[in-house]
């Protein structure tokens, strides 16, 4: 981990006070994004990915949320910033693209009005109402901002940007809305783009186009990106490095290719083995069980109830972190003292054997 990481999160934990007791959702999260690096957090539904990014961007209401830990962005401690300072940062140096392209645009304003506002006022520390009104109606400044929006719409390959800029969100298709959101996030040339499953709500062909668009603009600007996704294939396509998250803990991290060739954590291995293959290579029968209840999480390693290797050590204590070189680590008791680590093939074999055993039990 280098010292000049753009985003450096350490010891982040998030919990929620609810009627069912305290939910300990995210814990011990250390992650960093270097300048010009594209990093994804991969995990299944309910693994705490969205909560993590919301905690980083300060979008969680406290209470009910309890957030602890350090979030450093370009040397600034984000957790210490005032509300106003945060607002200045979000939309200016921090760009965000959310998962749902419909609910992220206000239905009563045209796309142009919303994006031009962002272009004109995003990140401005001048927040007075009067000055807002003056600048909002200053013809030349507004026109310049609008020009910038048009240019950005062209850059995200929006079909017919001149028409789109005066359309309401409901008049656009899902893919076009997603493009408008990406354009909005890029308008103020953010240093870091945080993207929550962009396009995953759309059809596969459109999703694919959105991803390649993102890949292009990221490469062009040499931008730093923190993206979350549930799809390992998407992560492979877009990122330099991957964090795997399970039960609110980061269980493994490695450069992208390494994850697919020598995944070290049994959860990562199980995930990879469960992905359906175009080549027709048989997939393992998935991983038993479901994500933990956060109000009553499993003791020790949170993955142990589903892990094909689990033993008493896994149940009794939280697993230690083992580093593999500069950039990779895994949090699993199997790696302590350089012991024999499970391989993807072995995990797959065990998962399939589990299935057969359970089947014969049922038959009996």
């Amino acid at each position, binding site marked *: 981990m280098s010292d000049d990481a753009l985003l450096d999160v350490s010891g982040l934990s998030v919990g929620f006070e609810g009627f069912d007791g305290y939910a300990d959702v995210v814990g011990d999260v250390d992650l960093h994004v270097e300048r010009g690096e594209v990093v994804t957090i991969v995990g299944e539904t309910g693994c705490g990915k969205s909560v993590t990014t919301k905690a980083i961007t300060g979008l969680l209401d406290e209470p009910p949320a309890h957030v602890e830990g350090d979030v450093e962005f370009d040397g600034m401690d984000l957790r210490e910033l005032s509300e106003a300072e945060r607002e200045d940062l979000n939309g200016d140096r921090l760009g965000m693209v959310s998962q749902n392209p419909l609910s992220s645009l206000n239905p009563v304003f045209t796309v142009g009005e919303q994006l031009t506002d962002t272009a004109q006022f995003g990140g401005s520390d001048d927040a007075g109402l009067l000055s807002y009104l003056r600048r909002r109606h200053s013809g030349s400044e507004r026109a310049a901002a609008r020009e910038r929006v048009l240019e950005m719409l062209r850059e995200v390959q929006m079909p017919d940007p001149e028409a789109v800029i005066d359309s309401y969100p409901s008049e656009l298709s899902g893919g076009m809305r997603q493009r408008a959101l990406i354009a909005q996030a890029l308008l103020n040339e953010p240093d870091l783009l945080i993207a929550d499953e962009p396009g995953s709500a759309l*059809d596969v062909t459109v999703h*694919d*186009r959105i991803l390649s668009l993102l890949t292009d603009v990221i490469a062009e600007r040499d931008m730093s990106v923190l993206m979350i996704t*549930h799809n390992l294939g998407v992560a492979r396509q877009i990122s330099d490095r991957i964090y795997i998250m399970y039960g609110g803990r980061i269980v493994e991290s490695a450069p992208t290719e390494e994850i697919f060739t020598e995944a070290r954590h049994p959860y990562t291995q199980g995930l990879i083995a469960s992905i359906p293959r*175009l*080549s*027709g290579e048989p997939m393992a029968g998935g991983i038993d069980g479901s994500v933990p209840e956060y109000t009553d999480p499993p003791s020790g390693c949170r993955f142990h109830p589903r892990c094909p290797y689990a033993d008493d050590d896994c149940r009794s204590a939280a697993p230690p972190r083992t580093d593999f070189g500069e950039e990779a680590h895994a949090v699993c008791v199997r790696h302590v003292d350089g012991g024999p680590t499970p391989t993807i093939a072995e995990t797959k074999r065990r998962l399939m054997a589990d299935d057969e055993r359970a089947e014969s039990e*049922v038959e009996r």
Partner: protein
Amino acid sequence: MSAPVLEVKNLKKHFASDGWLTDEPPAKAVDGVSFSIDEGETLALIGESGSGKSTVAKTIIDIHETTDGLIRYQGEDITNPIRRQVETIRSEIQLVFQDPTSCLNPRRTIRKTLLVPLKATGVPREEREARVSEMLERVGLTDEYLRKYPHELSGGQKQRVNIARALAVEPQLLLLDEPTSALDVSVQAKIVDLLADLQEELGLTYLFITHDLSLVRNFADETAVMYLGEIQEQGPTEELFESPRHPYTRALLSSIPVTSAADEAYRPESEPLRGEVPSPRDVPSGCRLHPRCPHATEDCSMRQPDTRHVNDVAVNCIAYDDDTDGFDALLDAANTTPGDAS
């Protein structure tokens, strides 16, 4: 070869527009679809949203009325069934819905939900409880789930309950409407596995509807690719993956984010489609794909493509050339316009 279990011929389902003041044209959700499934086989119906794939299933099972065409089950015409036939359909054909949550009544326990089909088919009261346990066991759940409410179950467990309910009447044909698309991959694999086991054990016939081509490679015997209410390419799954011919099939395949080099070999070179699926109320002339197709020629917008048969595969494409297994390069070049990439 035995007679097909299900035979669908030129099926059409048009939804008239709501309200009597609008003069909107009807939505042609399904517009001339034909296929058949043999006993114990699986046909995969692939398509994006708006392709009409779910409407096909709901029309077969009489949730929607058929506009035109023919549906035959075991040789019997069950298009817009009369009362007696509805009973046959209900006991022979079942549907598993896409969203495992919304198809379970939140206020009824699993036991009560599973008792419904047993009561309806007249299973004697004293046998019902044993049957319910048996049904749960078949899908890999234990009796402790009987007293639970849906919100206490995970997505995968709920989908198991739904499968159990569909199997309660001992159907022959199961229509699976994206049964795993609401689930995580690690759970999806388990459900697919369960479905494969059940098929083997009970000799079921499946119509498997999904948007995810990668799922069907190992699962379906035949695959049909739908776009805007029509089947564009249909044939043995193996053949379709080895040499996809229709531009839409190729685009679908090339947009799947894969995780290994071996899989990448099955992705045709990126052939992205322009724009998005048009409304089924405003279907393009000629070939329905032509406004989005990278290989479209002028001819494509003028006339409906004929079905051509190449190696057991039926392809509906004008631009595809079966001699060279490619598309006419000259026309391609003429047609590529800059700025069309969206």
